[in-house]
């Protein structure tokens, strides 16, 4: 499926990816169809992505892409053609029991992708298969090599899919959002530099601040601690352990539960506030249909508005929400 079209060809590996897919399908004797969902992607994912950046937040387009494009537009297309299920290469496991469908973490702890799938519901899971979820990635590559697939050693894809490598990110965003440069201040209000626009920075970011290591008494690096949208000021803190970089509590909205309703037992849960983070012990202290407040056992580094918090009960992914705000206590 092709979900992006436009003048970003310089960043885009779609044509090469298509050739790899064709080689693999040809080798396996499978029909390959190419279909474009670029309109759907633009309407349901990209507009939101840009709006979130305009609000100074750091959105996660991949979770939306899964819900709106892969497990909706693409699934509808496959069903229309007569498919019963779709199979994707996500490192996760679907467990069917008692007529319900649970989403479990993939076997490979380093590759588990349940974080990106927390917006799926029962209907989508009932029509999906994740055939490599129970295999370690290294074994998937081995299997691919043994089967003679040309892409067995292909580099893992990283970054936002339609932008490509991270180094293009700033250039890309500039095309869609006007830049609004401003000042950088330390947590105690001292001016220490200039920023190119708050949208280019994310919580906890260390690189690219342009603050000389020599500023301040210590040589410790600087990190983004806060964005003051009203004053268009980026606030930075020195040293990874600086207290302003850690919060114990967050508020999130757009709550979604995979089984369709609030799980009966929410005690003993944990959460991830970013992909590949270790599970963090937490407690949902307030919960309504749409919103929740979450308290962590340990203070969390760089809780980032716009990113998703995803809840787990052991290996089961329960659902999640989009981080709205955070507080120290």
């Amino acid at each position, binding site marked *: 499926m092709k979900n992006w079209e436009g003048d970003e060809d310089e960043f885009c590996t779609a044509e090469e990816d*298509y050739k790899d897919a064709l080689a693999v399908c040809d080798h396996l004797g499978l029909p390959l169809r190419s*279909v474009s969902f670029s309109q759907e992607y633009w309407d349901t994912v990209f507009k939101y992505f840009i709006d979130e950046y305009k609000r100074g937040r750091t959105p996660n387009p991949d979770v939306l892409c899964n819900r709106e494009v892969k497990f909706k537009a693409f699934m509808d297309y496959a069903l229309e*053609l007569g498919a019963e299920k779709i199979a994707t290469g996500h490192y996760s496991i679907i467990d069917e029991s008692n007529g319900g469908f649970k989403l479990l973490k993939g076997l490979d702890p380093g590759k588990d992708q349940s974080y990106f799938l927390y917006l799926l519901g029962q209907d989508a899971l009932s029509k999906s298969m994740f055939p490599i979820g129970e295999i370690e990635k290294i074994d998937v590559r081995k299997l691919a090599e043994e089967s003679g697939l040309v892409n067995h050693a292909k580099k893992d894809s990283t970054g936002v899919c339609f932008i490509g490598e991270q180094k293009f990110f700033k250039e890309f965003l500039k095309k869609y959002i006007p830049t609004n440069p401003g000042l950088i201040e330390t947590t105690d209000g001292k001016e220490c530099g200039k920023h190119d626009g708050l949208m280019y920075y994310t919580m906890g970011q260390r690189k690219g601040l342009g603050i000389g290591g020599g500023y301040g008494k210590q040589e410790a690096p600087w990190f983004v601690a806060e964005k003051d949208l009203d004053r268009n000021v980026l606030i930075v803190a020195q040293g990874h352990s600086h207290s302003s970089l850690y919060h114990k509590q967050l508020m999130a909205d757009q709550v979604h539960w995979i089984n369709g309703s609030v799980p009966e037992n929410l005690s003993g849960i944990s959460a991830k506030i970013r992909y590949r983070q270790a599970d963090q012990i937490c407690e949902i202290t307030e919960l309504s249909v749409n919103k929740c407040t979450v308290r962590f056992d340990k203070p969390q580094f760089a809780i980032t508005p716009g990113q998703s918090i995803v809840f787990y009960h052991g290996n089961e992914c329960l659902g999640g929400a989009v981080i709205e705000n955070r507080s120290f206590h």
Partner: protein
Amino acid sequence: MPYFDHSATTPIHPKVLKKMMDVAQQHFGNPSSVHASGRKSKAIIEKARRTIATAILASPSEIIFTGGGTEANNMVLWTLIQSEKKHIVTSSIEHPAILTVLEKLEPMGISCTVLPVNDQGRVDPKILEKSIQSNTGLISIMMANNEIGTIQPILELIDIALKHDIPFHSDTVQTLGKIPLSVQNIQADFMSFSAHKLYGPKGVGFLYKKKGRSLNPLIIGGGQEGKHRAGTENISGISGMGEAVRLASENLSKRMSHLEALETVFITHLNRECHNAVINGCPNHHLPGVISVSFPGYKSDILLAKLDRLGMEVSNGSACGSGSIKPSPVLEAMGISDSQNISTLRFSFGRDNTEKEAIQLVKALGQFANG
């Protein structure tokens, strides 16, 4: 597997394949070499040239072998760069092998008038006449369109070119082997042909260039093809093309009546099975066996994939565009709405298709798009 996409390409005729294999196995000499092997290869090429010239009633020296129809088109269009008259008139339903080239030429000072077509895909000769400027150096209008099969009023269009003494080029890749074509009748100055559209091999074609008309080479090097196209000749491809053209010419009336019969069966059944289907193009002037049909309310990519699953191969829009479903510019130029445009399939029959297959195709369509 029923294949209904002969406007995209055709399977190689067994006799053509035999010819090519014989040549490839036995004759490797470079046609430019003076020894026996070279002379033999040269003789094979010249024989193919004579065969092709005979088929379209041209003189052998008017046939230039190329790497296909696209290259032939490019040769003619790029010649404008060195012409004093740098304006060209073309139509809005040309193949990208014309329109994309003209886009590329524009910043180099080649201006272009793109003529509209009517709702049947035909150019009005009166509009052509009005578009001619004092610096018009070329008129390029395809003889028949690949997507809708519409045949242009080519004789009237050429008359206008003759009257104003402007070279006339026609992209004729879709026509040879489907309708009568001779340069005695169609007095164009240039015509582009492709072997793989008439059961010949891919990667080989030819340009007809009327004696006396000037042409600049695109590919420069050795002196092959009368210095018009450098590079050691594709001997087996050219001999295969010669055989394909000979077969097309000898069997033309048989092939035409076969395609007409298939078309009649297809359309009769279609009217019965798919009540809402709309046939696009010009009923009175079109290539036999090339039919564009819209199925309102159904997306062509879905229909195409469903037919593909049954092993029935058809096309939507142009075969060159892959992946996304974009409205066809040809149908757009005919004033067809976007919603009808993206619900359009093209069926193009060939010599191997049977009436039974045509009926099977309609049955499948009736199942997928009978609303």
